[in-house]
């Protein structure tokens, strides 16, 4: 018995994971004194590619107590092409938390796609005085032909 329907033109297009898919991961680990907002890591989707974001990790830990404690934050921001920044995930230790080894951690398995010129940025800041904080920001993504 023959096939009742043809597969159609869409069948010739490979699935995303077969279109030169490459896993990429990057991150930073830094111990820093109080500082104003700083973009420590950035990823821009190249032309002709799409990206599935697989995993984020954020972690901040008080390494040395502050003289005057302030808010401490690490965050991932997603900026669609030509659009304003959207915070996709953040962790924060408030000024009231100033004990060595206090730790805040987030791991996320997001489910969204980045298109060419979309940007992912990891930022940190600490509004206190003295002391230092350990920040870790990591991502894992899969880049493939659009």
């Amino acid at each position: 018995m023959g096939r009742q329907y043809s597969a159609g033109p869409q069948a010739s297009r490979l699935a995303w994971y077969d279109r030169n898919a490459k896993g990429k991961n990057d991150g930073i680990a830094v111990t820093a004194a109080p500082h104003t907002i700083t973009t420590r890591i950035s990823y821009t989707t190249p032309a002709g590619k799409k990206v599935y974001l697989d995993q984020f990790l954020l972690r901040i830990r008080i390494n040395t107590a502050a003289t005057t404690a302030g808010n401490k934050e690490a965050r991932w921001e997603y900026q669609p092409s030509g659009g304003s920044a959207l915070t996709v995930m953040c962790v924060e230790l408030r000024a009231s938390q100033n004990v060595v080894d206090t730790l805040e951690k987030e791991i996320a398995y997001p489910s969204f796609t980045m298109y060419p010129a979309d940007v992912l940025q990891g930022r940190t800041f600490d509004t206190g005085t003295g002391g230092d904080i350990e920040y870790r920001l990591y991502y894992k993504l899969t880049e493939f032909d659009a």
Partner: protein
Amino acid sequence: MKIRVNVTGKGTPDDPFRVDLPTYAMIAGSEEYADKARKILKSVEVLIPDDEVDEKGRPSLEKIRRKYRGQPRWDRPDLKLPK
């Protein structure tokens, strides 16, 4: 590829300290300050993708424009890269 580049921005939410490159990761402990007391960054070392550097190991205008072609931020004739 590891390179040292100048930092841009004022450290405000609208204009954070950053490197004017599409993809990078700052290297811990590499910060050079223009004003250390006020934490004004001058330059940092960053890791950037190998396919964005020229034969001298500096960010390549041509390669960045090609890799991000059609993107208004990076694919333009007057593109300037950080020193």
